[in-house]
């Protein structure tokens, strides 16, 4: 369970201490008087500068894991280390992008004011300079011309981009993104994937990315963890050693890309259908 994938980003040969480490995480919820065990001793590690995706079936605990790591939620047992120090509350240097972007956006702030909130929470710049920087991010997520719109005047995908820009402008050490592209069309999604990869390679922060889309995970990630149904365990932990920068056309056409996607998908799919691990091994070694 304590599997750790080799750092693949930039082809590092020496592996430094992980930026995030989860040790024996336990998390229970009380649902109608019954105890729901989401994690019962989950461990994993994230390398500095990595792009780690977490995939798994709906309700398996992906959001919960991300919240525990961010410090927004506290585990019932075990611990999270961020840069070697235990996380006891919302950690400075980590920003969580909520799955429920419609609830996370500030409806009383315009697009640019929403993004400005992120900036102001981490830097105090002179007004003109702050505005310029915000506009930069407005453009980056393709919302120029909409900077003075209120969220109710935007589509779901546009709102999601606002929320992403608000988080990225903080230039956090770790960006935790919970299904950030779930509400956008395929084309916007492809553009946003490239955007996030570009900013990730420019700023060199660590990304934890939750998605239920295996293909998206393979395209983006340097490492993928797949979780099983609750109580969640790590089912797969795969290093995706496709070269960066990745390209929507070229990378997706790469036979290794198809191979990764195929292998991961069938493994997750068969596991979900309840095929015993022994059968899996034969399928996997095929």
């Amino acid at each position, binding site marked *: 369970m304590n599997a750790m994938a080799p750092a693949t980003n930039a082809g590092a040969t020496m592996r430094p201490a992980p930026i995030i480490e989860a040790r024996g995480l336990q998390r229970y919820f009380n649902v109608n008087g019954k105890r729901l065990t989401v994690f019962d001793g989950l461990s994993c590690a994230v390398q500095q500068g990595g792009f780690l995706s977490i995939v798994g079936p709906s309700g398996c605990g992906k959001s919960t894991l991300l919240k525990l790591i*961010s410090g*927004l939620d506290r585990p019932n047992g075990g611990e999270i280390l961020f840069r070697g120090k235990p996380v006891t*509350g*919302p950690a*400075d240097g*980590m*920003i*969580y992008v*909520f799955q*429920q972007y419609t*609830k*996370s956006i*500030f*409806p*009383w*702030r315009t697009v640019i004011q929403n993004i400005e*909130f*992120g900036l102001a*929470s*981490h830097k105090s710049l002179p007004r003109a300079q702050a505005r310029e920087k915000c506009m930069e991010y407005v453009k980056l997520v393709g919302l120029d011309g909409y900077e003075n719109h*209120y*969220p*109710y*005047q935007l589509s779901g995908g546009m709102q999601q981009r606002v929320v992403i820009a608000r988080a990225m402008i*903080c230039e956090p050490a770790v960006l935790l993104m919970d299904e950030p592209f779930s509400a956008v069309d395929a084309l916007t999604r492809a553009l946003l994937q490239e955007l996030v990869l570009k900013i990730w390679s420019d700023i060199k922060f660590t990304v934890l990315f939750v998605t239920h889309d295996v293909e998206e995970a393979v395209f983006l990630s340097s490492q993928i963890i797949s979780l099983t149904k609750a109580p969640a365990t790590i089912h797969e932990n795969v290093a995706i050693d496709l070269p960066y920068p990745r390209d929507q056309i070229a990378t997706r056409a790469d036979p290794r890309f198809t191979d990764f996607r195929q292998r991961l998908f069938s493994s997750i799919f068969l596991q979900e259908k309840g095929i015993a691990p022994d059968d899996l091994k034969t399928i996997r070694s095929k």
Partner: protein
Amino acid sequence: MRRRWPGFLLIAVLLLAWEISSARGWIDPITFPRISVIFDSWLRTVWTTGDLTRQLLPSLGRIFSGFALACVVAIPLGLLMGSVSFVYRLLEPITEFIRPIPSSAYIPVAILFLGIGNEMKIFVVFLACCFPILLNTYGGVRGVDPVLIDTGRTFGVSKLTAARQIILPAAMPSILTGMRISLGIALIVAVVAEMITGNSGIGYFILDMQRVFRVPEMFAGIFTLGLLGFLINFVFLKIESHFLRWRGTSVEA
């Protein structure tokens, strides 16, 4: 405004019916003078002699001082009750107990402590205004979506910043609703207080006109109250839709 014309037409028809019924003696013209007579004395008391206008100002003063005081006290208290669960558990039962008492029932007590002057009336208005504002404020705060609060937490903003920049604006629609309810109540309570005691204000004017049997003037006062309530609400709705323009629910555009 254009879509409202059927409503205004109905008012005109009713007034006309009143006018005719009174003129023909279908209703007692002493208790229900003709509308034209009422309008005439309205014009007189408002413009020519200014008797009514003079009484309007003290009433407005009481309403707005009591209301403003209630805002100053109840909004911060509501924010506190909404965000600190200990304060909520401490104060919620007592508010729930005091709240159902009709505000006019405080008047005798208020007279005991504050006499029959302006202070008493402002105090009663203040007290009556407090509860809707308080309830709606803490209700609004408690109703703020946890995702919004967690958003503030993940950005690492201080509690104070979160209160100012997240909780307050998120609870604003609810707070404004409380304020609008309070304004309506303020008008009622001020008039009742003026009728019970005192020698000024529109409530006093109405009762006084009734006592000396100047019925048209009495009706002029009552209609003025209706107009006043309408205007206050209208202005407040304008202010409200300005503050809540981000909701985009208004049909104007």
